[in-house]
């Protein structure tokens, strides 16, 4: 009995100590550079005294923390190594396979520490729900980014995007021309969606695409859920998570995903083709932002300058993604014309779901998706 009491006392004491230990000491919040600029509040490169000074300030910090940037996603592997070589700044890439929410969670949990993320690359709903944690910044190429793709002060800027597409291995299945094709017996056990739509942004947009193709809309996705229920009933729908391995192996001969992700995952499959169905053109852009609590504020800002430079934009393009300055660069002749021309053809007016539509559709999916595909 008394042993038990002692145990309880020790346990309680231990807990209190460990809880106290969890609260890490706040880092001295000195983000002022040698030249006397507070990097954490600088809203453009001029505040540093020009690009050269920004580069110097970033190099003095020496590091940049990025999070949830898979090397095979929109060419991030090359983007990271190019930045490192160009500026001699080390990039710490945390949780490369993390989700958007993981980025925000990491910023909250590591607040005040050297390991907190400096920059975010987020899906729409997560980005718009967390603008309070972003620092506004306008890159040098700000004017060539269309207004619809940026927050007026620069809290966030769309970085790259693409269209919902059907990728397929033309050696294994017949050519796909529309979503309705996928219900045919020729696609038995073949069609995968990149993730669960109640979880992953890409899969969510896939359901929106199916909804639009079947008379629904971005806010009313019931028709899209019905489409996948039919696909499941026809035994055409695969519930496995598609990735480059399953694609190369032939386990997932048809994948519904963003055009740039599908193309990257299938880069070793010569017979892989990507179509953006003309009856349902759904576009989506990712959101780039600087963390207000960035431990390396100057490097974070230099990273933005790099991403939105012609060089950075062309690197995204090399990953099959459409950089946000793509049209302006095509006009100015600074885009990599060969890559730009190789993107899948898109006809029709693209739909970009608004935040309200996303929320409404999300609620419907939370209630009905699990039922529809079981």
């Amino acid at each position, binding site marked *: 009995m008394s042993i038990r009491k002692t145990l309880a006392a020790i346990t309680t004491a*231990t807990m209190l100590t460990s809880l106290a230990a969890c609260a890490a000491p706040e880092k001295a919040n000195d983000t002022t550079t040698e030249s006397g600029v507070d990097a954490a509040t600088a809203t453009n490169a001029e505040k540093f005294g020009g690009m050269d000074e920004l580069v110097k300030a970033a190099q003095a910090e020496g590091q940049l923390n990025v999070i949830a940037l898979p090397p095979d996603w929109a060419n991030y592997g090359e983007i990271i190594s190019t930045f490192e070589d160009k500026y001699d700044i080390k990039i710490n890439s945390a949780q490369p396979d993390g989700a958007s929410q993981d980025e925000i969670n990491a910023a909250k949990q590591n607040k005040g520490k050297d390991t907190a993320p400096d920059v975010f690359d987020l899906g729409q709903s997560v980005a718009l729900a967390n603008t309070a944690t972003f620092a506004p910044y306008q890159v040098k190429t700000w004017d060539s980014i269309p207004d619809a793709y940026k927050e007026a002060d620069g809290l966030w800027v769309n970085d790259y995007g693409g269209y919902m597409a059907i990728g397929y291995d033309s050696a294994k299945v017949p050519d796909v021309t529309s979503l309705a094709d996928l219900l045919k017996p020729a696609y038995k056990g073949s069609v995968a969606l990149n993730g669960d739509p109640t979880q992953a942004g890409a899969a969510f947009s896939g359901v929106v695409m199916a909804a639009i193709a079947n008379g629904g809309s971005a806010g009313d996705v019931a028709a899209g859920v019905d489409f996948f229920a039919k696909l499941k009933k026809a035994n055409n729908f695969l519930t496995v998570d598609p990735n480059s391995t399953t694609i190369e192996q032939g386990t997932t001969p048809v994948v519904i995903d963003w055009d740039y992700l599908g193309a990257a995952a299938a880069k070793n499959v010569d017979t892989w083709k990507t179509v953006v169905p003309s009856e349902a053109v759904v576009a989506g852009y990712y959101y780039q932002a600087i963390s207000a609590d960035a431990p390396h504020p100057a490097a974070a800002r230099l990273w933005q300058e790099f991403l939105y430079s012609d060089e950075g934009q062309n690197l995204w393009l090399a990953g099959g993604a459409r950089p946000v300055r793509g049209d302006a660069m095509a006009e100015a002749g600074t885009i990599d014309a060969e890559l730009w021309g190789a993107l899948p053809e898109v006809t029709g007016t693209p739909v970009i779901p608004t935040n309200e539509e996303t929320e409404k559709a999300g609620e419907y999916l939370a209630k009905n998706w699990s039922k529809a595909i079981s």
Partner: protein
Amino acid sequence: MSSAQQQSGRPARVGRVGRLLPLVPFLLFVAIFLIVPVVTVAVGAFRDADGAFTTDNLGALTDYAAVKALRGSLVLAGSTALIGAVFGALLAWLIVSAGPDSLLKRLTLAISGVLAQFGGVILAFAWIATIGIQGVVTLALQHITGFNLYGNGWLFSIPGLIVVYTYFQIPLMVIVFAPAIEGLRVQWREAAVSLGATRWQYWRHVAVPLLTPAFLGCALLLFANAFAAYATAAVLVSQGQPIVPLLIRQAITSEVLLGGANVGFALALEMILVVAVVMGAYSLLVRRTSRWLQ
């Protein structure tokens, strides 16, 4: 601690605290990795995103998706624990009866040790490569017999998970249950036989009752092992969150449904309670089945 042990223990002046001292690292470990998380989960389950008290998170446990996931988890963990325990125990008995120095026994235990830890993403891909739609075995069977093993994609649903989980459950059972069988002394058997017991009677009245508590304990371990497993299932089934760990992932990291982190806590609390109930049932059973041992 029995009174006999206490009497033969250290002198009283070392004191209780002195005896507990070596336990401190363990207690620290338990506190940090068990008690703190459990408290965090229990508190989080009753809070909303702003930290105010709410029971909405628990209410969300009755949603269709949550009920379906719990049912899926129970079916998966229960069936693989049962299959794993029965076949694992049989295999353990076979290798132990091959003799203490037999190559078969040593080989099987070594292999089991490896396979029991072979889980996660690699295991999932190994199965896809073997019996997936383009799997080696699937194609070979189709070629030779015309039989389509892949069918309608059962590998990527609960039945598929049951098969894949069994792959690490049986070896785990072999490792943890073999020592119990080895503990059966030859003398007990000889005593039973010399008293005129048949082989059946020996098993029915001596061996099985002796082994039952260990068997149940091992089955419980298998249940918890499958109940909490995550990575293998995450690769094989990416639609509809058929088991609770996957639903927790959705609650925490969804890019579509935001602010569900506290529902994740409620789901985790539900898992803790399920394991607590199973453990309670286990200790009741053990008390009943081992009463005569005392």
